[in-house]
């Protein structure tokens, strides 16, 4: 996030929520937003599901799943056409206005109305409310990024913020609400194929700097992205896979394909706290200490580095993940893994990236209850708001407005981008984006299928399903297939009947819940439950050309009612999960 999440309560005038079910997935951020609304802030919500936040919004727009770029371009079109943009900010601090002007020219609010039925007047209302606000904050989650045009979606959002000067001030910004406790930290630590904790692997200066600390040259060749791994295993390029603290059998798209791929590995190592669905497929399983049993730091969505305290001793022989890793590194014969405690690793991180973390000692993080990076020295107070000097992190310090076009056929994206580059004479190193749908509904698979979370559970349920007040209490109903009213009506589905949802990749069976909050033609389910994991059906074939992301939030599917016998049959044939409690399975049947 460019800003601190508490500013939603104290400073934001307009909240612009898109592709986030904030009260379900980030309840405390939702609380801060609602405090802002009590103060007088306005809220816009854009989502295929009329979420709790949508019901509290001043304007709610129900977009079809995946229909983001035409909508966002229409907002930008209106803002430029009506001269609602911040001319001083755009002129002084950005490039590319002419490119964007050209790219959005065909995207009018009327076009949105024609394509989706969303009234043009409402699109205009959103554009004006956002552009006229003194400070407006854009917030989004995976409902923006998990598409084949996810990166371009974010280009469009940052275009909106740059155009309206909503950067570098309290209560504004572009704010991805991070879904996992330490996504920010894992990225900042360099757990990425192209980035180290000091910067890009392709940058010679970065490699030199790391060598000066590690005493060893690192490779300049970017590694494989996680989404490419099943394919690279099948090609015979990856022979050894080491997974820690992650359950890709359930969280990666197209479960069956992932499981098939990992069977080709020479060795698969899984390091975890439970025998997860992924660990069950491993050749070696290494146990490790869990949260509550080890010290360390997390970095939250506002870039705030916070302390994680050990509270209890783990079982005999169980050590923190970093210690397991060091044990292995030392047995391989690698130097530089003789850390005695977590703090020593953190102090090395501070040397690798002094600009961000130089001033963040453990003592200071604990004393001040967390500090946001960049914090280069002990006297620096941290940076809750990025870009206060109106300078971007790019070499020339300017913000880039990125033209984003749209292709009706996903195979035309590169061609259309090239045409745009040639037509406008856009320099080679200037980014250009494009949108398209990964799949379109058809006769065989007439429904849009999307996934998300419920407030009771977290991701693949490894931890929350082992907590009785959540699994057996609040969430006693278990997995459900949520359908829009028109789907239920057409197929004679009632609440609590059994149904099967399937497409060419997989199928799941569960009880039906008719959800009037879903846009017509939409099916929703979670990926919390191994017995009915939405990712069985997710699209792993298509990727975002810029980030490598799969469109996990969007595929197509068919649904039909089934008998209890067929339901039990499907469930038994797909059973792999680690929570073997017959008790609640019977209740849920």
């Amino acid at each position: 996030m460019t800003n601190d999440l508490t500013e939603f309560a104290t400073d934001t005038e307009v909240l612009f929520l898109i592709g986030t079910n904030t009260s379900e997935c980030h309840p405390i951020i939702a609380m801060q937003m609602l405090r802002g609304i009590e103060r007088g802030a306005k809220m816009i919500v854009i989502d295929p599901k009329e979420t709790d936040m949508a019901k509290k919004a001043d304007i709610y727009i129900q977009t079809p799943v995946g229909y983001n770029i035409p909508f966002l371009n229409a907002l930008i079109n209106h803002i430029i056409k009506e001269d609602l943009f911040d001319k001083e900010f755009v002129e002084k601090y950005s490039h590319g206005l002419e490119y964007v002007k050209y790219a959005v020219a065909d995207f009018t609010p009327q076009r949105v109305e024609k394509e989706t039925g969303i009234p043009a007047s409402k699109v205009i209302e959103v554009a004006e409310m956002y552009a006229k606000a003194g400070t407006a904050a854009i917030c989004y989650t995976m409902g923006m990024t998990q598409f084949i045009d996810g990166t371009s979606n974010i280009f469009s959002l940052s275009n909106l913020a740059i155009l309206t000067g909503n950067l570098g001030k309290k209560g504004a910004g572009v704010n991805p609400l991070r879904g996992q406790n330490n996504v920010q930290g894992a990225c900042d630590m360099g757990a990425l194929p192209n980035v180290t904790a000091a910067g890009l692997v392709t940058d010679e200066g970065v490699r030199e700097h790391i060598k000066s600390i590690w005493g060893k040259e690192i490779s300049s060749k970017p590694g494989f992205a996680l989404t490419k791994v099943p394919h690279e295993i099948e090609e015979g390029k990856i022979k050894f896979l080491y997974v820690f603290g992650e359950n890709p059998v359930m969280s990666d798209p197209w479960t069956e394909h992932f499981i098939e791929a990992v069977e080709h590995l020479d060795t698969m190592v899984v390091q975890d706290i439970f025998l997860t669905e992924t660990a069950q497929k491993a050749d070696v399983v290494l146990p490790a200490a869990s949260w509550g049993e080890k010290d360390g730091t997390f970095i939250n969505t506002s870039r705030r580095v916070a302390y994680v305290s050990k509270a209890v001793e783990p079982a005999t022989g169980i050590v923190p993940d970093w210690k397991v890793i060091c044990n292995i590194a030392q047995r391989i014969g690698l130097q530089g893994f003789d850390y005695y405690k977590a703090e020593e690793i953190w102090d090395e991180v501070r040397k690798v990236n002094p600009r961000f973390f130089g001033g963040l000692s453990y003592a200071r993080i604990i004393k001040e209850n967390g500090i946001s990076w960049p914090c280069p020295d002990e006297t620096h107070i941290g940076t809750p708001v990025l870009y206060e000097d109106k300078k971007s992190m790019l070499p020339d310090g300017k913000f880039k407005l990125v033209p984003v076009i749209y292709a009706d056929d996903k195979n035309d994206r590169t061609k259309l981008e090239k045409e745009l580059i040639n037509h406008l004479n856009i320099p080679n190193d200037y980014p250009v984006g494009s949108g398209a749908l990964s799949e379109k509904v058809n006769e065989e698979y007439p429904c849009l299928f999307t996934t998300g979370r419920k407030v009771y559970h977290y991701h693949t349920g490894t931890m929350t399903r082992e907590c009785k007040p959540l699994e057996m209490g609040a969430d006693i109903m278990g997995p459900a297939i949520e359908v829009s009213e028109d789907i239920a009506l057409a197929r004679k589905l009632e609440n609590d009947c059994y149904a099967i949802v399937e497409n060419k990749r997989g199928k799941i069976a569960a009880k039906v819940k008719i959800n009037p909050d879903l846009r017509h033609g939409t099916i929703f389910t979670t990926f919390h439950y191994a017995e009915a994991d939405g990712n069985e059906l997710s699209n792993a074939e298509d990727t975002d050309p810029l980030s490598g992301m799969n469109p996990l939030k969007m595929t197509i599917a068919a649904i039909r009612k089934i008998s209890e016998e067929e339901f039990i049959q499907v469930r038994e044939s797909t059973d792999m999960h680690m929570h073997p409690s017959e008790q609640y399975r019977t209740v849920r049947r």
Partner: protein
Amino acid sequence: MDKFQTTCPYCGTGCNIDLLVKNNKIVKAEPTKGHHVNDGELCLKGLYGWEYVHSPRRLTKPLIRKKDGVFSKKGELVEVSFDEAYDFVASKMKKTVDEYGSDSIMGFSSARCTNEDNYAFQKLFRMQGTNNIDHCARL
């Protein structure tokens, strides 16, 4: 009863929790009062999502897939000592790099674990000459 202030392990909000501990067991989670992020409030997962730490299904011993006492892809996961497991992983990793090159190994790091865990993990791979490292931020 002892009290430990920590950061919640679930979403990216970063709420602070006071864990109350008795006889080496967490018995209660309370929101840290007056904390910048969550200001004395917690969601359901923050309040009740700690019980898994003491689950009887926690892994306590390493496992290796074996058939007739030796490693086999067709075997079953059986308990082994920590030394055997660490030696096995180290030798397999080294052998793979020697035989197929640095880029034949790949690591999935964890957005659920600490900075220190993630830093050590990417260093393990980069020190062996590959950037084949990614994590579940995408998922």
